[in-house]
């Protein structure tokens, strides 16, 4: 099986893709030509304009179908693969009990101005997400959920008070890269407040993070969209509990 693939429309190798976008111009023949020009520059050839509709005064929405000539080499794709075994809640509890001989303390929060607790709650609340229970459900984890709009100093203080083994931070708002600024601020504060051997494991999550940026942001791990509580719990055990 070759590592080289092309997009698939209805025939192997046809390279067909669909694209939609808006141009800030009124709809006329010229606008349609402009849309095709953009599609062409993006590598769609031939490009078919299948839909154009003016919105408001000076904007037109386009849908373009067409063929691209680019090849994708799947052997050269770089992703962060899960590098720890996925455990059940029972296994997590057993490993913590045996390996740590105390409860594993987890402190979670939404930091900065972000008020969207959806992410952290999905991971921490008993309710969990998609039928999978959150970390509060794990008998051997002690979870402190600080909720929304927690300041970085508050988070550091809570982590110290709770003797946190891990700090979980979720960031949903991404305007002006707020999620990146907040994460850097948070990791810097922990570096400043605690020596390396006393520092909790720093984990951030959110739908718009790039999972490969952990080093750059000064955290131990980044979890992207679709992460489940079980994955987070398994990761914590993998990092924090000696087998």
């Amino acid at each position, binding site marked *: 099986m070759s590592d080289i693939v092309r997009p698939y429309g209805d025939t192997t190798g046809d390279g067909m893709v669909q694209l939609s976008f808006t141009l800030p111009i009124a709809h006329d023949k010229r606008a349609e030509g402009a849309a095709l020009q953009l599609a062409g520059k993006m590598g769609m050839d031939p490009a078919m304009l299948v839909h154009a509709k003016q919105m408001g005064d000076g904007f037109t929405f386009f849908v373009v179908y067409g063929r691209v000539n680019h090849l994708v080499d799947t052997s050269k794709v770089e992703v962060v693969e899960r590098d720890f075994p996925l455990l059940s809640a029972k296994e997590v509890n057993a490993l913590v009990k045996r390996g740590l001989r105390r409860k594993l303390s987890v402190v979670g929060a939404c930091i*900065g101005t972000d*008020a969207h607790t959806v992410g952290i709650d999905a991971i921490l*609340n008993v309710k969990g997400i998609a039928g999978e229970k959150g970390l509060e459900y794990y008998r051997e984890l002690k979870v402190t959920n600080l909720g929304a709009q927690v300041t970085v100093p508050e988070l550091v203080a809570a982590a110290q008070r709770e003797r946190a083994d891990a700090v979980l931070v979720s960031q949903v708002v991404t305007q002006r890269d707020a999620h990146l600024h907040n994460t850097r601020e948070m990791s810097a504060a922990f570096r400043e407040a605690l020596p390396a051997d006393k520092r909790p494991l720093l984990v951030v999550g959110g739908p718009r993070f790039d999972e490969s940026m952990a080093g750059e942001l000064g955290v131990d791990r980044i979890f992207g969209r679709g992460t489940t509580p079980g994955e987070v719990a398994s990761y914590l055990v993998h990092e924090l509990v000696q087998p």
Partner: protein
Amino acid sequence: MAKLDLDPALVSRARELARRAGQPVVDLARSHTTVSVERAVLRLAGVTGADPDGIPWVNRLVDAVVDEVGLEHGVALPVFDALAREGLPAGDLTLLAQKAAAGSVRFGVPTGKAATAARKVASKATGAGLKAIDRRRAERDRLIKRFGDPKQRPWIYLIVATGDIYEDIPQAQAAARAGADVIAVIRSTGQSLLDYVPEGPTREGFAGTYATQENFRLMRAALDESSRELKRYVRLTNYASGLCMPEMATLAGLERLDMMLNDSMYGILFRDINPIRTFVDQRFSRQVHARAGIIINTGEDNYLTTADAVDEAHTVTVSQLLNEFFAHEAGLANWQLGLGHAFEINPEVPESFRLELAHALLARELFPDAPLKWMPPTKHMTGDVFRGNLLDGFFNLAGAMTGQGILLVGMMTEAVVTPWLSDRDIALQNVRYVLGAAGGLHEDFVPAPGGFIQQRANLVLAEAVRLLEKIEGDTLLQAIAEGTFGIMKRPADRGKGLAGVAKHADDYFNPATELLEAS
């Protein structure tokens, strides 16, 4: 209409239980005040503007009074007493605030003749603020008469959220032209936890635009222009929530906003604001909304984003009943109750659409005269925009079939990006198609007697009554502390803003509340 064969005795029992569960909270609200209530009083009395650091003069003045005499007497008497002693006219409260901030004014609680005099001037000054709100309400009535209401129900409600009021304005006007009847300007993330209202026009917000009096004024003026152009009155919505709820309500009244998000428990559950602070602020803000002719939008949809929409459906009903009780108690009429609920059942659940219809119709029948606010799917929007658009279509259809009053337009790019121009256009096309094709379907849609929808609605009502019985027995504050709503546990002695709460002293005086309750 009676499409669900609800047991009228059970419905009355639910209302009676909500009344009994809510009454202790009302008593609590009547016997406490907060810094934000007091600041709202001063705003009504005409204090405007902010110091060079952007801290409003109302904050400076209330802080100065609290430092010297505490919060428990209310600020009106100490402030108007100081005004008289300083020999300043009633119109110069802002000057007094500036002097107080500089530390050159002393405050005390007046007694005897001085108290009588201060009371009189305070009532007159806050009364002038309420009259200004009355004028704005009359102006709205005139404009609605001139331009007309939207032709269809539900009203189409669209959100703008650029962070920059000068970007919001053209977007809001474009949205109105494209069919929006109501424009909501989303607030900057984090504003709910600011203990002051920012001043002036603002261009820097996160995921929304700061709510300020000047931003309110600019947007209302722009939508008045749109109303003239479109020959229908375009309504404006903002938020009376967070730590400054009473002030937001006051500013909304003064700037003729038409709807305000205003939920009795949202701040407690989702922003971890102290429960007592919230209930005190709530009552005052609702009294102002009642006076200003503002339609409130409650936040029950939020429970379903954290809790399961099937298992916890009855908590929505319970919250609606509580919101209704608190609203009526504060003087709001049924036409002002935009009680919330949402299309948040997991689409993978069998018969999810029939369940949605049952829940939506239950709200419709329990509150026949309220303009229910129907909120689109968010929790199960995955980034698959095509599926999202289909889900939004079903949401719109459920709205049409169950006669909802206000329909918040769902975006297929929910959970992906803040809506693009094209997302909004596609979303409105979806709404227009459904309302055009099936707008009157609620007339024909009568669930089969004893069938799935009727059974489900009756079950949810029965569960709601059971929960209300428990809440009434344990008290509402206890239920909130235990995480009954939206699974958030919020004890009454914790949460943000608790420091700004005080129990009334025997001589507590609030001219605004007196006037609001007399009307």
